[in-house]
């Protein structure tokens, strides 16, 4: 499969990346400005990265896509634990996109790709009750708590959204679309 474009945004599966695209993903992921937001802030070793990328070819439980905006690499959206039309969603946004205030737009388009193009039925994730940034971003994207996870000491909530909720609510939320459109116009198309 080659890259799939929806407007300004292009999606390319990790299994289809060129060596230089894959290297750019590793550099982006290891950027200190990106690592500070990750669960593990340790840089990823190049060999580990290559093993991970190779492993994806025989892994039908995971799907990783590289996202570009106007031909610039802006982030990654991933699905893991794919089962019964549901998956654990994840993402990271490049320093380039963060500097341009595009994280919301990047994550929105990553989720939109998974729902509309890949046809996933439900995306879920976890958020800490104390993480205001995550709670706000998730709420904007329609990801609301479905249960509290006792295993995490009651501090973590499971959040989720179905494809129907996405297409009928989030993707038509006028306030959200206006907010994202503002940033798209400010950033232009180059």
């Amino acid at each position, binding site marked *: 499969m080659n890259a799939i474009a929806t407007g300004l945004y292009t999606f390319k599966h990790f299994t289809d990346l060129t060596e230089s695209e894959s290297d750019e993903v590793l550099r982006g992921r290891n950027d200190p400005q990106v690592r500070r937001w990750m669960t593990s802030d340790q840089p990823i070793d190049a060999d580990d990265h290559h093993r991970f990328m190779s492993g994806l070819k025989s892994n039908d439980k995971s799907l990783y896509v590289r996202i570009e905006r106007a031909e610039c690499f802006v982030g990654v959206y991933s699905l893991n634990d794919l089962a019964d039309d549901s998956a654990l969603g994840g993402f990271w946004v490049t320093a380039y996109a*963060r*500097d341009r*205030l*595009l*994280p*919301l737009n990047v994550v929105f388009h990553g989720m939109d790709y998974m729902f509309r193009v890949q046809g996933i039925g439900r995306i879920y994730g976890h958020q800490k009750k104390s*993480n*205001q*940034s995550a709670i*706000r*971003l998730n709420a*904007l994207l329609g990801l609301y708590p479905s249960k509290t996870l006792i295993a995490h000491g009651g501090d973590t909530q499971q959040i989720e959204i179905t494809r129907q909720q996405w297409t009928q609510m989030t993707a038509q939320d006028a306030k959200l679309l*206006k*907010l994202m459109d*503002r*940033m798209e116009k*400010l*950033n232009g198309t180059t």
Partner: protein
Amino acid sequence: MEQLEKYKLAFVEIIGVTEEQLPGLVYQDTAGWDSVGHMQLMTQLEDVFGIALEMEDILDFSSYEKGMDIMRKYGVTL
């Protein structure tokens, strides 16, 4: 409501801080003022004051006080 009060209210509502915390408040200094909060704050200020901020000013809007200087450029009396 005076323009300064509207300016402060935007921060209190969007960033989630009290008025007392506003002096010296810097972008990314508090969880509420991350990139998404920043975008929401900018659009709120545009709506409240009926202005359209330039990209340069949105990126330059790095603190509560710096934001006041930028608002004045658009004719907002603070």
